[in-house]
């Protein structure tokens, strides 16, 4: 790939996303390195979740180019080298690289916990059932839910459901994990168990992780870099210790003051 360096796994090049006339992402330039743990913070409506949704191909872009793992995400190269809109088969190929954890968990309610983890590997990747089950059980052990494998999602607490959500995404062996406010829908006492799982993932795996969160202390602990989003752009970014203790922009200061007081 000529457009990005070898150690860059995600690159947004002047990406624009509009909903009708409202511009959510405004000529965004943004890069993530392979294995990097990046946290996105910012006020609501700043476009931070939209970045993840664009990557997961849940929202098409209005302009610019997104690169993922050496290939264009929303485009394909035509015969003459020009970029044309991506076909469904190209999007399917690109989606394999990413896994997403949703704010509302979005587990399949009609499947047991284990089925939630084996369904996509068997149906999408064609993995043999026995192998998928073994992998599911390993992942459930990792997130501490072995005892709940045969339950349905509604029988679990929110924190347990989100841990299943993380395991379900990991079952597809993605290179990049996208966490879209994974603890925002949880009761406060359940946040810790989910953050614990994400922390272990960050520490023990070379996964690239992109996390949108309001948990500032957590962001400070696990991130290699924190990006402050404002009005569809990265207003300020840096190492967590720099950004949190010594923000340069007035908007960043205001935001951090507001959320940290709230905590």
């Amino acid at each position, binding site marked *: 790939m000529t457009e990005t360096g070898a150690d860059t796994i995600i690159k947004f090049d002047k990406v624009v996303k509009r909903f009708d006339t409202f511009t959510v992402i405004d000529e965004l330039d943004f890069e993530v390195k392979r294995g990097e743990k990046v946290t996105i913070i910012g006020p609501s409506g700043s476009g931070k979740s939209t970045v993840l949704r664009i990557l*997961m*191909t*849940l929202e098409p872009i209005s302009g610019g180019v997104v690169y993922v793992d050496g290939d264009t995400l929303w485009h394909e190269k035509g015969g003459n080298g020009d970029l044309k809109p991506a076909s469904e088969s190209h999007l*399917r190929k690109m*989606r*394999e690289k*990413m*896994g*997403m954890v*949703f704010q*509302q968990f*979005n*587990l*399949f*309610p*009609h*499947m047991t916990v284990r089925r939630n983890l084996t*369904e*996509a590997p068997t*149906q*999408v990747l064609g993995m043999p059932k026995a192998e998928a089950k073994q992998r599911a059980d390993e992942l459930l052990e990792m997130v501490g839910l072995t005892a709940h494998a045969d339950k*349905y999602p*509604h029988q679990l607490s929110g924190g347990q459901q989100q841990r299943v959500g993380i395991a*379900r*995404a990991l079952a*597809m062996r993605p290179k990049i994990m996208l966490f879209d406010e994974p603890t925002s829908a949880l009761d406060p006492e359940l946040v810790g168990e989910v953050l614990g799982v994400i922390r272990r993932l960050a520490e023990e795996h070379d996964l690239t992780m992109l996390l949108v969160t309001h948990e500032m202390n957590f962001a400070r602990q696990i991130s290699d870099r924190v990006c402050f989003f404002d009005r569809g752009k990265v207003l300020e970014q840096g190492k967590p210790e720099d950004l949190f203790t010594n923000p340069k922009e007035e908007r960043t200061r205001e935001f951090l003051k507001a959320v940290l007081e709230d905590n």
Partner: protein
Amino acid sequence: MDWTQYLNPLMQGAWVTIELTIYSTIFGAILSFAAGIGKLAHNPLIKAIAVGYIEIFRGTSLLVQLFWLYFALPVAGQAIGLDLRLPPVVAGVLALSLNIGAYGAEVVRGAIQSVSKDQYEAAKALNFTPRKTLWRVALPQAIPEMMPSFGNLAIQNLKDTALVSLISLSDLAFRAEQLRNFTQDSTTIYTMTLFMYFGLALVLTAMMKVLERFVGRWRAGAR
């Protein structure tokens, strides 16, 4: 005549009614899914066929549909040199299924559309194809939603089978009419007939409840 003497002929009729109900409910359910999913298809031709079928069969009388299939279709067939005469049972089941299928299609469509956007997004993030998303994610969640309406339609279907007596099928209503002509004992015969339809409806309701519980066994509060 004593009322017990009516029992045997009425039971024979009831059996025909049961058969008609079972066949037309099953075929009707298949048509419901085909047309309900078809109406949501992106392919404009499939969509047009589904919409056309649903609107025509919901917008016309079941009795006329039945007569058309039984009396008009053979004549139309003759005109183009085809033998389209249908045995009464086939015409009856066909008319009932097509009619109930058109109503059921709207139930299927509505239930599929009621599956939350979040579920489709989860399926997409896990790279399910649209087809697998429909069969593995959307339909299993939509089917329990359909069951109360399907229960109503099945009961309606049971009662509608009485119309086939008009094309000489000897169902429960036909037997009742026959006995009444013969004995003039209208009150006894039609009271018994009412109770028999009601009994069948109760059994059908119970069966649909069992089915509803089965397809929704994963839901909160299901057990």
